[in-house]
Structures are given as structure tokens and as C-alpha cells.
């Protein structure tokens, strides 16, 4: 899997670059973020959770059976919302309460 960064949304804060455990994200000459080594992404979603303007999404690579959905997170009212947009336009939202523990 890997990530895609929407340059139009990116405000160049550099937070995604700071957290990436593989140092894979860089800022281009105009100060916008891009992933320099897309094949080296571990899929940890750290960058996605950092982005204040929800400019980063991840997708499952076609080689691991991906179907083209793009996924990002949003922070709303203390909840972490996972937004899964499928290619046919269907959107699934799942809200996670960070104060709630896993049941399994």
C-alpha cells in the first residue's frame, strides 16, 4: 500500500514529513509535500493522522488486492473518523472514540 498527497489541499506545514518512520515524505520547491519513495511506504498511516487539512489518503496496492478506495482520517469532536471513499463514489465513515479500548 501507499499514500497519495493532494497538492491542492496541502498547506505545507511539514507535519507529515516530520513523523514518517521511513523519512519518505519531502517538501517540493513550492513547499508542498510529496512522497518521494512511494514503494517504500509501510502503510502505518502516521502521516495521514497528522495532516491538519486531510490532504493525505492511503490506498491498497493493486498487487495486494486493492480496489481503488482512498482512505483518510478526520478529527471531529474528540473522535477519529476514518473516511473510506470507493471509486464509485460511495463513502463509508467510521468513527472511533480514542478513549474506548479494543474489545479483542
Amino acid at each position, binding site marked *: 500500500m501507499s499514500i497519495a498527497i493532494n497538492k491542492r489541499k496541502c498547506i505545507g506545514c511539514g507535519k507529515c514529513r516530520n513523523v514518517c518512520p521511513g*523519512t519518505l515524505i519531502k517538501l517540493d520547491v513550492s513547499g508542498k509535500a510529496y512522497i518521494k519513495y512511494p*514503494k517504500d511506504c509501510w*502503510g*502505518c498511516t*502516521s502521516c495521514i493522522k497528522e495532516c491538519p487539512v486531510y490532504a493525505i489518503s492511503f490506498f491498497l496496492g493493486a498487487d495486494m488486492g486493492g480496489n481503488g*478506495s482512498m482512505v483518510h482520517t478526520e478529527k471531529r469532536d474528540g473522535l477519529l473518523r476514518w473516511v473510506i471513499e470507493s471509486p464509485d463514489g460511495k463513502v463509508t465513515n467510521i468513527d*472511533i472514540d480514542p478513549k474506548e479500548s*479494543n*474489545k*479483542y
Partner: protein
Amino acid sequence: MKYEKLTTDLLIIGGGTAGCQAAITVRESSDIKILICEKAHIKRSGCLAAGVNALNAYITEGHTPKDYVEYARKDADGIVRDDLLYSMSERLNKVTKQLEDMGLVILKDENGKYVARGNRNIKINGENIKPLLAAAVEKLPDVTVLNRVNVIDISVTDNKINGAFAIGIENDTFYTIEAKAVMIATGGAAGLYRPNNPGFSRHKMWYPPFNTGAGYAMGIKHGAEMTSLEMRFIALRCKDTIAPTGTLAQGAGAKQINSLGEVYETKYGLTTSERVYGTVNENLEGRGPCYLKTEGISPEKEKSLINAYLNMAPSQTVKWIESGKKISEQNVEIEGTEPYIVGGHTACGFWVDTDRATTISGLFAAGDVAGGCPQKYVTGALAEGEIAALSALRYISENAPTPIPEAEIKAHITETESFLGEDKSVYSTEQLEEAMQTAMDAYAGGIKTNYRFNEKQLDIADMKIRRIEKLSDSLHADDFQELMYIYELRERLTVCRSVIAHLKARHETRWHCFAENLDYPEKDDKNWRKYVNSRLENGEIKIILRELTEEGQRVYEHSHK
């Protein structure tokens, strides 16, 4: 290139689980200088970056550290060190409390007690565990954290540590760091073998692809004794997403079934290696693919699973949603991963004494890089971080620092300059990495051979790895990040050679898949209830067979002390 020389009391290599805890522990009782070098950023580096799903090592009510030691000993079929397991187990609950105080959410019952998952696990929301740990470190007074600084070597004279060398990936700096004591907490090694998804998603692996075995390699090169590197770890994972299966199996009670719908796990046994072995065998005998049976689970369980996976391995949740089917309408296909070297799960790593001192004076090891003490997981890595930190503190008060010889600094600078200099290389680092992974896959028991190997194959693997090592001398880097990639490859090659030597040395098959030697397909308790250790001497790996320590033994000291 810029040059910087730093001096500190304690150098911690790797600001992951064990490294962070070590800094926290030292500051509780001492104001010595602490420097953490972290190749990424401590906020989300190493194993904990994505979050974890449970605390896998905890002494639950009605159990004792002894129970935990016995469980770990059984899982590794005897090749463990009780002194290490006890000293770790006795700290598990204390470090858990510390995590809770940092803000980790732990599930509690109506009486305020932690809710157990099975006998040894407790349930948490572990999505933010690394940011919590990092925040605790950042609050400490006078702890210097150098992020994006990758340690490339240690300096050792007469078997005593002097410090280390590092490169600043984002500031093009070469660091020489003198330290009174050094703690290695670089985690285990991924990327030695060809991964499950070798194409675009090559890094969608279980273990962090950025933990490249640097710590093992530095130790090996300087003659530190290593143990049990033949006890590789292969995880049983959800196919494609490589997401954990424990949450489905132990958590939701899903059974391992073959394509005929038969439950096969009971046929092979339930240790980690047996679960993988059973799956491989069912496939070989024509009853694949294998699954975890989630068909028919309740809607309530379904919702909890969707959420639990988002907190630790979100790809699996996405996979379920993309399939357009409910979890209760389809089983989850499972497979084994490529082999990893990881001392938090098996017993491989540095040969340490009870204080987590390696055989090099002043060099300590904790977490996945330290051997002899399997089933550590997050809390065990924290426990070892504490033990190693306290030992380093004692060492610092008793031993004077020694300088890094000038000639050694020069040699390291020359080496980095040559990689950064004129591009004369035929091959890229990526090509050599692929060559290494392909060789290990085919000849040292990778996925391709269902984890099996024989001596002749290992000899071929060794020959190929040595050739790639030579080729790596003339690699070229355009910038410091590429320079790090060269060092990562060379670390992996060093680890590969030792792994091959260890696999070859154990003339038995004690753990299916982890070390499945076709020349010796049976377990041999009479001759092989031994530690296989090794040390590099004059460029060659010397195997040292050691008798097992006693069950219940609480202290082990290195004989050179």
C-alpha cells in the same frame, strides 16, 4: 558534508520502545547527560508507529511471573534464559501502570480492574502509544533527542565501547559521538528475505521495514557474542494486508480452517511456529487455502473487529469494506510472512547477562535487539529498557570514558565520502537489496521453499551474500538518504551471513518453519538442548555452543567479567 563531534554520558541508539523507556528511567534517579539518536522521529518510529492492538505481555490476576516464564520457555521449546525472562516478567505490570499514567487507554471492568484477553494479554486502545511515550521523553529535562540521525557504527577498543558514528539524513552531517556507555535499542531486522508482496507493496510487511538490523550488525562486526539467530520469526498473518491474526483468533475466537472447512490447528499444536507450520502443510497437502473462520460471527463482534483493526492495521478494515461483503459472510485467508529476526518474539539477538550488558564492556542491549528472552512484546521491551538503563548508569559511575581513535574517525569519513563521491557503480542499492532477498528466499529458507533448507543450499546462500557484500563496496549515493540506504543494505547483509551460519549450526529441527533443516528434520533433545551462539573472529563467524542455564536460575554473568 558537515562534521560534528558530540560528547555524552549515555548514548541511546534508537528512540523506540526500549530506547524511550531507558531515557525515562535514567531521569528518575540521575542527571547524567543523555543523547538519543533516532533515524526517524521518536513521535512515530519503529514497531509502535501504527499503534498496537493489545499489551501481549502482562501478569493477569491469578498468575505469576513464573507462569509467564514457563509459557515463554514452552513456546521456544526450551532455548531461553530464565534469568532474563524472570527479570522481564517481574516488571511487566509496573511498566503497564506507567503507560496508563502516560494516558494509554486500558479496558477495565466495573471494579476498575484490567480486562484480560486470555491469560497474558490486556485490552487497550494502542493507536497513540508511541506519541504518548515520545511526549513523556520530550518532557524530561536535558535529554537531547536527535531525530533523523542514523547511527552507522559503534566504536570499540579492546572490547570496550568508546561511542558511535552517525549520519544526519536531513542535515548532511557526519557525527562522531563519544559516550561513557551506549545502549542499543534498534529493534529487529526486516527485509532480509523476499517479502510476501515483492512488487509495489513490498514494504507492506509485518515488521517495520525501517528496522534493518543495524544493532545486530554493529555488534556482530565488533565481535559481540550473538545468540539463537537461527530462531527466526515467521508471523501468521491475514493474506495481502499482513494484518495480525491474534485479534481474530484469540480475541474473537476464530479457528484456523482449511479449504475443506476442517479445523486444523489442533492437529499441529498451538505454539507460534506450529500455527504457521500447520498452515504451510495444509497447503502442501492440497487442502489450501487456509482461513480464519469468521463466517457467522455476530454483528456486535463484527463492529468491534472493524474498529480494532482501524486502531492497528487499517488496511484489513479497508480490505473488508472494499470486498463489499460483511466479515460474517467471508473467512479471512491467512499465510505466513517472510522470516524476520526479532528478539521480542523469539530468543535471537545479543547474548546479554542479566543486567542486559552485552559481551562488549559498556554496551547494553534491550528490546527486540536483545536475545535469550522471547515473548517480550511492548511491555517486555519497556522492562528491558529499564533494566539496561539502570545497568548503564552503574557502569558509568564505575568506568572512565575512552576516546574514539582519530584513525577510526578518518576511516569512517573516508568511507562515507567514497559512497557520496563519483558514481562508478554498476548496480543500485535497490538492485543489490533485491539480489540479497532473492538469495535468502531461495537458499536460506524463505517463502519460496516453504521455509525449508538444507546445508548445501545454505552454502550457496552464503556464497551469494558474500558476493553481494563485495559489490556493495562500490555503491553510490546521491544524498544522505541514499547513503543511509547503503548502510541499511550492508547491515542486512551482515545479519544475513550470521543467520545463515546459525541455521547451519543447529543440526536438528526444533522449531518448524523457524528453522526447518531438511538434513536434520527431527528434534534432537539429546544433543541440541543448547544455545547456538556466535562471534566474529578475524572476519569469520565462529560458532559457540553453550549449555542451557538451569531452569529457575536468576542470575547469569558473562565469564569474562
